[in-house]
């Protein structure tokens, strides 16, 4: 691939175009651990520069960043003489082994597109990076590469899945910024985040605005989900609450459990009784009979029909 032989030299910092980020695939650029390592041991792995005047950095942007911050004047560099596309491939493959984060993967694809790589070359790299060969994935990756710093940082800090990134990219910049601010204050799993973002998206489509003021008062991701669910599924939320209320009124011991279809579709309910002897069973039957007499079981059947007692009262 490389037309010219490579040679190793120590190059003064001022001979390198440090502001040229054409081949930069590192995000974030500053790496605390690497910085400490370079401080102690110096630059052990040479940078790669292209034979231009000044030299164009191809790989080693993080090392360069540390060198600048540590006032290192001469850097070990492998000098190559290659065209732009080959330089880009060198930059990618030099970093592939260490593993790219999501933003860096997006930068790779975005830069390949900008440099005119054909679609098969891009798909091949995407396959290596673990992505499906699909136009929609490319679109998402370009979205990430072009996104604001706050989103990039959020993606990396929370190791967001592509699904959640797609949800965030769907919002406009200002909404996204507010959502990131809201979610940066709470802990969440990827699936909980997905639920929250999906609910927020539905609210946005339905109402045109997001209830962020109300959400900003909350300090827990589960609370946020609860409020959002109430916006999107008011009836189901009421049915859930009503079921919980009636179940509490039944005050069954742990060996009796009443279950209902969580989607309130099925007409039947499950009553599970765990007993170890006749006395246990008689006791359980008595408690269920009591709940029947008080009308609680009938109320639960009402819930399966999507009816709430207070509506009937």
């Amino acid at each position: 691939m490389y037309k010219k032989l490579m040679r190793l030299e120590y190059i003064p910092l001022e001979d390198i175009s440090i502001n040229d980020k054409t081949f930069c695939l590192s995000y974030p650029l500053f790496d605390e651990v690497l910085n400490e390592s370079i401080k102690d041991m110096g630059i052990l792995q040479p940078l790669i520069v292209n034979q231009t005047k000044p030299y164009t950095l191809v790989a080693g942007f993080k090392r360069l960043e540390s060198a600048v911050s540590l006032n290192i004047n001469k850097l070990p560099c492998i000098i190559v003489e290659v065209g732009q596309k080959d330089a880009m491939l060198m930059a990618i493959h030099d970093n592939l082994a260490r593993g790219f984060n999501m933003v860096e993967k997006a930068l790779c694809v975005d830069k390949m597109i900008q440099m005119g790589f054909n679609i098969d070359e891009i798909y091949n790299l995407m396959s290596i990076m673990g992505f499906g060969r699909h136009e929609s994935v490319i679109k998402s990756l370009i979205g990430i590469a072009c996104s604001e710093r706050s989103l990039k940082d959020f993606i990396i800090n929370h190791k967001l899945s592509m699904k959640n990134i797609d949800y965030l990219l769907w919002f406009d910049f200002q909404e996204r910024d507010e959502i990131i601010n809201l979610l940066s204050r709470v802990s969440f799993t990827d699936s909980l985040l997905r639920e929250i973002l999906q609910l927020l998206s539905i609210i946005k489509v339905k109402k045109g605005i997001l209830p962020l003021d109300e959400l900003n008062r909350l300090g827990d991701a589960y609370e946020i989900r609860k409020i959002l669910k109430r916006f999107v599924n008011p009836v189901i939320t009421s049915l859930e609450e009503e079921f919980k209320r009636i179940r509490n009124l039944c005050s069954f011991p742990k060996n009796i459990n009443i279950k209902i279809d969580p989607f309130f579709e099925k007409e039947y309910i499950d009553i599970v009784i765990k007993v170890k002897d006749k006395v246990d069973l008689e006791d359980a039957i008595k408690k269920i009979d009591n709940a029947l007499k008080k009308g609680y079981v009938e109320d639960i059947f009402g819930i399966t029909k999507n009816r709430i007692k207070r509506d009937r009262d």
Partner: protein
Amino acid sequence: MALRKIELKEIETDAVRACPGTKNHICCGYKTIDLIEGCLLSCSYCILKHYLKSHEIRINTNIKSIISQIDKTIEDDKHHIWRFGTGELSDSLVFDRKYRLNQPLMDYFGEKKKALFELKSKWAQIDHLKPFLNRFIVVSFSLAPQNIIEREERRSSPLYKRLKALKKAQDSGCYVGLHLDPIIIYEGFEKDYYYLVEDIGRIIDLERVLWISLGLLRFPPKMLDIFIKEKRKNLLYGEFTRGEDGKYRYIKSERIRVYKMVYDLLKNKNSGLFIYLCMEREDVWRESTGLIVRDTEELISFFDKRIKDFYGGEL
């Protein structure tokens, strides 16, 4: 939008199938003919986008094989009067004027006289078919308020053209079918459905409507993201739950309310109409129509009776 490739191919495949139905819901026992896979109309809620993996539209030109499969299906089970249709994986009419796909099938059903062939469409072009229409062909149109057609079925024919095409089919001696499916809950939909039923009653001879299906919007979970992405406010307006088949549906109480509303509107126009719910639960049937339909077999027997009432000894 990119142009879609249309591939015509003679395929030896199982093209005649029982409608796959949906888990724990009552199906009408329809027989589908996979003559075409894919559709040009691209309605926003269409689940073909989810079902069919290929972007291409595939037309099976092996009519001889398809007819022999239909024949076998009819001969294998003579307990029922089967209804066949090509409108499951595509629109029955959207390609028909160009490719003339339905004519040999229509001829077959006209000669066989043992089953019905339904052309189910949103594409109101039937003039080219008029010379071939016979009593065993049911011309059906999916009907929705013009508001919804303009927003969610943008490539299909407007309501007045669909109603006009139905009238033409009736004038040619055919019975027709109406499919109010999907019924979409959006702001003010009640008024729009009221006027839709008014238009139906004004333009079509309700005495010659063989069946009417009602089906509220339902979709596989993956479609939810498509609706969000495309900001489909109408489609996301209602409150959804997950059915036993895993699909999103409007919550049960809403489905009952809306089915009852549309059912009553139609029945008030003509109490003799045969109206069925597409893929619904027994309790929803009971609460919204007052009918006890315990399972698919029972619904199929309702169809048998309806068809016998219309065709007498002809079938």
